[in-house]
């Protein structure tokens, strides 16, 4: 019974309740529960913190000191710019209208929304303020684009980043978010499970990163010169803030502070812990030392993989999922990357895309009641579900890659993707931003 309710809820994502503006608050209008509103505002803040300063530090600590500000600025400005674009047209295109892959223009500039407008949740009759829902979804859009920038760090032009990310946000993020999360969305209707954004956020960003890394080309000296992280404590702080903030991401996606949130919360916690332990031990066993960068990478791998699964699997499934994600992502960043020779500076592909795929596919497995999950939808076999999950992955990979290619091409043809060789040597901080990080 209760399990059915939860599974069901996965199929009933948000269609914001439009209150006719100007109308006085009628007696039968649903009033948001203050506990839900409090939690959703807290969750939104947690996701903001994931981006600023979380992700910025995680990435910034990994580059060389001459490029740290460039990474911080890319995250800071992309996050801010997309926030503005989200309220101008992003929200309208992603969450209004009736299209299966893109929405309408009726809420451009948030037209017609006021403090009394409500958005539906997974539970009938339970609503949250639409402004809060807009802010919450905004953070997902902004953060996703920020994830991408790690792939071509240390060599790209700042203007190129802005141009490419605006195009990619508009033509890749918005439609994919709609397809996966909107009640009328294409993948949603197929029955793809993605509780908090494995496809929309991580696979989406990861593949866009890979395309960018390849198109921008390798860093000077890649493979021959040492390029160690300039400040690993920053990386650790960033990873920790990402971990803490990710609860807003995952548990906030539940839209309510109800009992089910507890499961999502615990899953997010322990899948990550298990992935940290797994990565640490694999690294220790195979390469001789358990590193801080490894521990932090394990945390992100676990978080990425549990993202689509956090509302579908049980605690023990979460632990196993975390371990598997750590093993496969470890392999991706140490072996796969070397085999293909691309220079994905901060392993956006190896951690976010690969981890996202692992999570998306295995969600279809560990959702099974026999494996401790909340149970497959009636009449759906595990194979069916895994198939649907794989389809969702494939669509995301293809769509995002194509749009990303075009986006970088446009940037390349207008401002150029890459700084000059001398400038790359000097470092982007002084060259692109006229500042030094440390004096």
């Amino acid at each position, binding site marked *: 019974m209760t399990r059915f309710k939860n599974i069901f809820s996965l199929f009933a994502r948000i269609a914001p309740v439009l209150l006719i503006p100007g109308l006085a608050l009628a007696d039968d209008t649903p009033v948001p529960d203050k506990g839900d509103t409090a939690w959703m505002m807290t969750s939104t803040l947690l996701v903001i913190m994931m981006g600023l300063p979380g992700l910025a530090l995680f990435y910034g600590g990994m580059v060389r000191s001459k490029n740290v500000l460039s990474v911080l600025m890319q995250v800071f400005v992309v996050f801010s710019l997309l926030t503005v674009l989200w309220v101008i047209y992003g929200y309208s295109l992603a969450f209004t209208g009736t299209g299966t892959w893109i929405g309408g223009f009726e809420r451009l500039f948030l037209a017609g929304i006021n403090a009394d407008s409500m958005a539906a949740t997974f539970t009938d009759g339970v609503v949250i303020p639409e402004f809060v829902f807009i802010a919450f979804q905004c953070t997902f859009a902004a953060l996703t684009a920020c994830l991408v920038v790690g792939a071509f760090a240390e060599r790209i032009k700042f203007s190129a980043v802005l141009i490419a990310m605006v195009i990619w946000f508009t033509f890749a993020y918005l439609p994919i978010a709609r397809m996966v999360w909107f009640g009328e969305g294409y993948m949603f209707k197929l029955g793809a499970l993605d509780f908090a954004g494995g496809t929309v956020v991580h696979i989406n960003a990861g593949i866009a990163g890979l395309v960018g890394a390849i198109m921008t080309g390798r860093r000077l000296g890649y493979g021959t*010169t040492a390029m160690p992280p300039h400040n690993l404590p920053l990386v650790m702080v960033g990873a920790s803030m990402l971990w803490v903030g990710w609860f807003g991401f995952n548990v906030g996606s539940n839209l309510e502070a109800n009992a089910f949130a507890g499961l999502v919360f615990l899953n997010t916690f322990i899948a990550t812990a298990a992935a940290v332990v797994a990565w640490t031990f694999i690294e220790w066993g195979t390469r001789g030392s358990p590193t801080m960068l490894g521990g932090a990478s394990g945390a992100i791998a676990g978080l990425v993989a549990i993202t689509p699964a956090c509302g579908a699997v049980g605690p023990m499934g979460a632990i196993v999922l975390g371990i598997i994600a750590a093993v496969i992502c470890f392999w991706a960043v140490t072996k796969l990357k070397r085999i293909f020779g691309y220079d994905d500076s901060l392993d956006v592909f190896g951690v976010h895309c690969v981890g996202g795929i692992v999570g998306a596919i295995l969600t279809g497995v560990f959702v099974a009641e026999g494996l401790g999950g909340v149970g497959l939808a009636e009449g759906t076999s595990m194979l069916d579900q895994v198939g649907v999950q794989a389809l969702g992955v494939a669509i995301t990979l293809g769509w995002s890659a194509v749009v990303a290619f075009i986006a970088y091409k446009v940037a390349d043809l207008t401002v150029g993707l890459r700084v000059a060789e*001398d400038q790359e040597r000097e470092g982007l901080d002084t060259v692109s931003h*006229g*500042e*030094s990080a440390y004096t």
Partner: protein
Amino acid sequence: MKLITAIIKPFKLDDVRQAVTEMGVQGITVTEVKGYGRQRGHTELYRGAEYVVDFLPKTKLELAVADDIAEQVVEAIVNTARTGKIGDGKIFVTALEEVVRIRTGETGSEAV
């Protein structure tokens, strides 16, 4: 013995190290320095303040070598450290009166 002091562009360090070790140099002492010279710096902006950074990051190498190879070593450094662009740096050579290896107490060219 000679003490060769070379101020080079930081990204050339590995190349130079390789070049001189291939010639038999067994030790180098490296210092991060800032160089002022003909090469122009960049401008930095901090809110209202704006100023030119004239001291650029350079790497200083110190090598104690036997007299006979000193000239070749200098040449090798010049060849590997050169980019042809302004700011490539300088090499200074001074006479060393004595060299001691602390571990063994050896002196002279044995100690280099």
